[in-house]
């Protein structure tokens, strides 16, 4: 039997359905691959027994002809999702050892549809980071390497473990979350497909909150079809999250391969940043040509408030985070460092429990919400957010179906290369992605080429609210047209 880890999710699903192999065999292959890939540090916790137990149940269902949509498909779960009986840490020391008694709605949806769990995937601490270097459990190493170099490359972040695990074939798909680009940037860095759905498409219940008004769950997978299959299971209304939307979930897979003829694609001129690398500019141009060739109509558009998005994001997100992370106080669960009184307990616990980047954002957020600063920072940032959303609304009102942009301003970088001296250098990674979160829109990233040093580059498609289907159709068109990017061979095993 050939290596089952080399299958796509859709291929594995079809193979299971036609009984070419069993769910147990499939899961065993992935369990073994995960065990061999410890040097990538993609998983914080491995749950091989759970995966195999679920796989046995899947085989029984397949035998009875009762297979569910994701029957026996092994997945990795970002460690921001609460998983019942399995440690959930948000990659933070402050939650080390925390085992929830509840399952997040999105992961529960995946188990409902028959998927199996290989383990909990590494991430930036509390999803704050763009390189997966802020994890208390150490950085994730990308399976990708530059041409003729052994330098360790970051997988991006915060869903670095999810992207690396998919790219290294350590699962058939992974859950991820995106607050400012945390699904799409790592997908772009690892040659995988990631979609941040419309805000409200997936339930946030049971996912450790970073910035509640921006956080959204989504999948990372090898290709557009796999991402579509996963999102269908993940999405849906949840009465436990009042910001989730009660609208039917379409069969996204049906959109994959649909014609894009006549679709109007907006090209926002403001995204052509000063100093944009020629490589990224050329990639974007090629994307335009591929869609044009597929029958889409290309139209230049203007999103005038784009340049304010990143600064506004770095006010709104830390503000919400400073409040969301107040519950980690050492009183009820997680890390506790006692001192002479309760204030001491708070200070010692939080100083020891939170890493540097998380502490920085809590301080920024606390500052911008303070009396006397609220209007100047938080309130203005919210106004900018409204303007950004209006920019998109106006573009869509003129008949634009989707917007094409680069995913990131550069390919992946080496560990320690960025942000050590100036955190803003790291924040700039999100320049093309944060606007989408600020406007609550869906954004899909697909691999579109390789950089001059052989690292993946991605393009981003931004859609109308709840029109993920158009993104899947357009994403597949790019996937078809772009040169095939082979995932890296396992140098780590």
């Amino acid at each position, binding site marked *: 039997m050939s290596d089952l880890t080399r299958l796509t999710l859709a291929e594995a699903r079809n193979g299971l359905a036609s009984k070419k192999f069993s769910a147990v065999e499939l899961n065993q292959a992935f369990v073994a691959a995960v065990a061999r890939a410890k040097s990538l540090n993609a998983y914080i916790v491995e749950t091989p027994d759970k995966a195999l137990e679920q796989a046995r149940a899947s085989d029984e269902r397949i035998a009875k002809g009762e297979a569910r949509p994701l029957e026996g498909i092994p997945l990795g779960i970002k460690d921001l999702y609460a998983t019942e009986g399995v440690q959930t840490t948000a990659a933070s020391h402050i939650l080390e050892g925390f085992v929830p008694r509840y399952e997040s709605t999105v992961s529960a949806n995946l188990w409902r549809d028959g998927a199996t769990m290989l383990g909990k995937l590494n991430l930036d601490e509390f999803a704050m980071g763009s390189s997966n270097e802020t994890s208390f459990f150490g950085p994730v190493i990308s399976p990708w390497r530059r041409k003729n170099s052994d330098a360790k490359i970051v997988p991006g972040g915060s869903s670095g473990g999810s992207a690396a695990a998919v790219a290294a074939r350590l699962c058939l798909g992974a859950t991820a979350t995106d607050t400012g680009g945390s699904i799409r940037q790592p997908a772009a860095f690892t040659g995988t497909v990631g979609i941040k759905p419309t805000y409200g498409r997936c339930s*946030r*219940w049971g996912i450790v*909150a970073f910035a509640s*008004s921006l956080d959204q769950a989504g999948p990372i997978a090898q290709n557009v079809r796999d991402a579509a299959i996963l999102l269908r299971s993940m999405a849906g209304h949840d009465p436990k999250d*009042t*910001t989730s939307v009660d609208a039917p979930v379409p069969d996204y897979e049906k959109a994959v391969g649909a014609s894009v003829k006549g679709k109007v694609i907006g090209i926002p001129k403001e995204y052509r940043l000063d100093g944009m690398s020629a490589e990224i500019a050329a990639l974007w141009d090629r994307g335009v040509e591929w869609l044009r060739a597929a029958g889409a109509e290309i139209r230049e558009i203007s999103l005038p408030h784009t340049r304010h998005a990143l600064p506004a994001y770095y006010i709104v997100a830390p503000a919400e985070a400073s409040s969301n992370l*107040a*519950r980690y*106080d050492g009183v009820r669960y997680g890390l506790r460092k006692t001192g002479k009184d309760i*204030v001491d307990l708070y200070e010692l616990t939080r100083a020891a429990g939170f890493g540097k980047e998380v502490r920085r954002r809590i301080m920024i957020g606390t500052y911008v919400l303070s009396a006397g600063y609220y209007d100047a920072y938080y309130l203005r940032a919210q106004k900018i957010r409204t303007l950004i959303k209006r920019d998109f609304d106006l573009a869509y009102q003129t008949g634009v179906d989707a917007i094409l942009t680069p995913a990131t301003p550069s390919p992946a970088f080496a560990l320690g290369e960025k942000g050590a001296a100036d955190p803003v250098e790291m924040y700039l990674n999100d320049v093309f992605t944060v606007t989408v979160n600020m406007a609550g829109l869906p954004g899909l990233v697909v691999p579109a080429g390789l950089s001059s040093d052989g690292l993946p580059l991605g393009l981003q498609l931004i859609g109308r609210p709840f029109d993920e289907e158009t993104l899947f159709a357009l994403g597949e068109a790019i996937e078809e047209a772009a040169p095939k990017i082979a995932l890296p061979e396992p140098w780590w095993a």
Partner: protein
Amino acid sequence: MNSQAHSSKLIAGATGDWEVVIGLEIHAQVTSRSKLFSGASTEFGGAPNSHVSLVDAAMPGMLPVINEECVKQAIRTGLGLKAQINHRSVFDRKNYFYPDLPQGYQISQYKNPIVGEGEVLVDLSPTEQIKVGIERLHLEQDAGKSLHDLGANDSHVDLNRSGVALMEIVSKPDLRSADEAKAYVTKLRTILRYIGSCDGNMEQGSLRADVNVSVRKPGESFGTRCEIKNVNSIRFIGQAIDVEARRQIGILEDGGTIDQETRLYDPGKGETRSMRSKEEAHDYRYFPDPDLLPLEFDQAYVDVLATDLPELPDEKKARFIAQYGLSPYDAGVLILERAAADYFEEATKGRDAKLVANWVINELFGRLNKEGKSIEDSPVLAAQIGAIADLISAHVISGKLAKDLFDIVWLEGGDPAKIVETRGMKQVTDTGAIEKAVDEIIAKNPDKVEQAKAKPTMLGWFVGQVMKATGGKANPQAVNEILKAKLGI
């Protein structure tokens, strides 16, 4: 009539009269089965931490979901306060660290409350009424409870109350004395209990007040205020205001100034003391809670709730005066509790309302008070007190016998008419029998007859003798008339 400074309300100081200005923030626990944002029970008195959901404990990834029943209660209360109902309101986070605040923030309403301005009419006496403005009413979460006395070195936290819905009802600074403040809280409590949006139970903490107090010379602008936190009885509210006003007057008359601060009232020592100064005040970093969409509903939603609203105390009082011809005082006493008003209405059906009101207020309420019982626990039912009134009206029993009858019904129950029958309590209205008794007494007491002719007040002695002779059952009116005729007075 409004809250003009009446001289009687002023406090005399060394430098002249002072006026006290009071505004109240009442925290009323919303009557609902479950908490404001979680499905956990709100029942009082459970074992510590037995009514705590994952949301209440602020476990990672938990989200609040608004309990619609609490929203309805807030709207109903707003309608009862004749207040503006805001069709769009926003929940904000009030951020601070405290062990009994698991989220690290309280979900409250800051800039956009569910209820805006309204008013409450407060009766100070049967003839004096003031109008107290309501600034706003908003919904918020209660905190848990810290327990420091269970162990020598550690504290414990009980989260049963954590997340329970509160309505904070903020008055305008319209109150001018401790008595006015007490009357206002009493009236507000009555309205809340009528509506059923708060049980008003102060011992269990269902109703607490933060009291804002300042003093000024009449006619001057408002002085600097102090806020007395968490006063939990109407009596203490009055005491705290008097004590705090005196303290402030003392400082000002000594040439000092009032520091704006938060204070606590110590009923044991009869003093208020500083809790935290303005400088120490928290920066709560309010911002809209991103987990909750703005709360929106339309006028039709409000209209349905308005239709289901019970008759409120002011309307009921006016109706009792108009419909039953009661005095404002009697009507005011009867409507204090909705259950008592209902009791009266049931008892008075088709009867002499003034008589029934008298019996309900004097006999029934007196006895209930004495025995610490509520109207719901009254051993004498409305139908029974009505039956007693019937027996009085029909001259079957005298007022005195009626009191004995009430006592029997209170202790033993039963149909009053039958009790009168079986125990021979029936009033003797047979004039023949009375005449016979009168004749006998006149015959036996010729000296007294002579005296009575000179001094008609002697009649009372004869009445007493006749009643005695008839076992108290003779109709006093008939006795009087017959005696007068026979004695020729």
